[in-house]
């Protein structure tokens, strides 16, 4: 007579939940990149005006366009599943940093920080939603796993 114990189901479930979190994280990063990329591009897509003419609305977002180089210089790069970067191509718009932080003669137009502040909550909420959804689909209980 013997009593056998088989907990291999837990192992499979744990692996499935781990995979679910990895997938959710990847999707959340995609969403974040898309949101920030869109936000920054919108912040740089102001009215166009000819060179050597004053801006129609100085010191405010969206940044007005003269050549449109800054507007076209928004790039993103995926580092791995959990990390990505949205950046300005310095070769195309070396003056980006002065537009963002301002100078003595020009007010700052923080086109990147503003995009992040505006969308941060939406990104965090989406990540939370995706993780819960994927864990549930993998057969886990998000409340137990995430301690909610």
């Amino acid at each position: 007579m013997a009593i056998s114990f088989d907990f291999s189901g837990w192992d499979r479930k744990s692996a499935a939940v781990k995979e679910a979190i990895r997938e959710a994280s990847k999707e959340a990063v995609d969403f974040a990149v898309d949101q920030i990329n869109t936000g920054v591009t919108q912040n740089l897509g102001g009215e166009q005006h000819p060179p050597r003419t004053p801006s129609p609305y100085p010191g405010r977002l969206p940044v007005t366009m003269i050549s449109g180089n800054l507007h076209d210089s928004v790039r993103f790069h995926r580092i791995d599943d959990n990390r990505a970067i949205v950046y300005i191509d310095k070769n195309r718009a070396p003056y980006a940093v002065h537009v963002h932080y301002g100078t003595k003669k020009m007010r700052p137009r923080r086109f990147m920080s503003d995009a992040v502040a505006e969308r941060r909550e939406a990104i965090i909420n989406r990540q939370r939603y995706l993780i819960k959804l994927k864990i549930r689909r993998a057969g886990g209980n998000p409340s137990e796993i995430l301690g909610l």
Partner: protein
Amino acid sequence: MAIRRKYSVSDVQKVIHALIAKLTSATAPWSSWQAVYGYPEGEVFNFTKLLLYVDTPIKTGTLAHQGGRPAITMEIIVGCWNNGGDEGTGGVEECDIAAGHLLDLFGDVDVYNTTFTVTLGSTTYTNKSLYDHGIIITGSTGPRNIPVEDPLEYRREVTVSMIVTF
């Protein structure tokens, strides 16, 4: 709680500016610096002192809780700008000292000990602390080195995170 919900952006900016202005009016080494409300405009650069500017805060989130009105989280940029050159207003070292003082001020509970006077709307609040105004500092990061055009200018920015209750 003096911060008004509908005027939270300007009220928070005024309160933080009043706090820094109070320090620059009395305490060394703060008295060697000049507090500026908002981004420093061209004319401000005539001052001979290092500038501490308090930029417009940004709302970063909402903290909802049961049984009360939600608080909000905000971030505000406090910068230092030294435009007097190496011999005029202390150069890069002075700028770093100012940035260090800002980081320390907002990274320590001592920030609640400083009382200051500020007018919000039509009401003047005399000798109140940040805590009295419903502001809880949650951290400070930086300083970021901000590129400038003039080689004898130095600029740093510190970001202060806070919870604003109403």
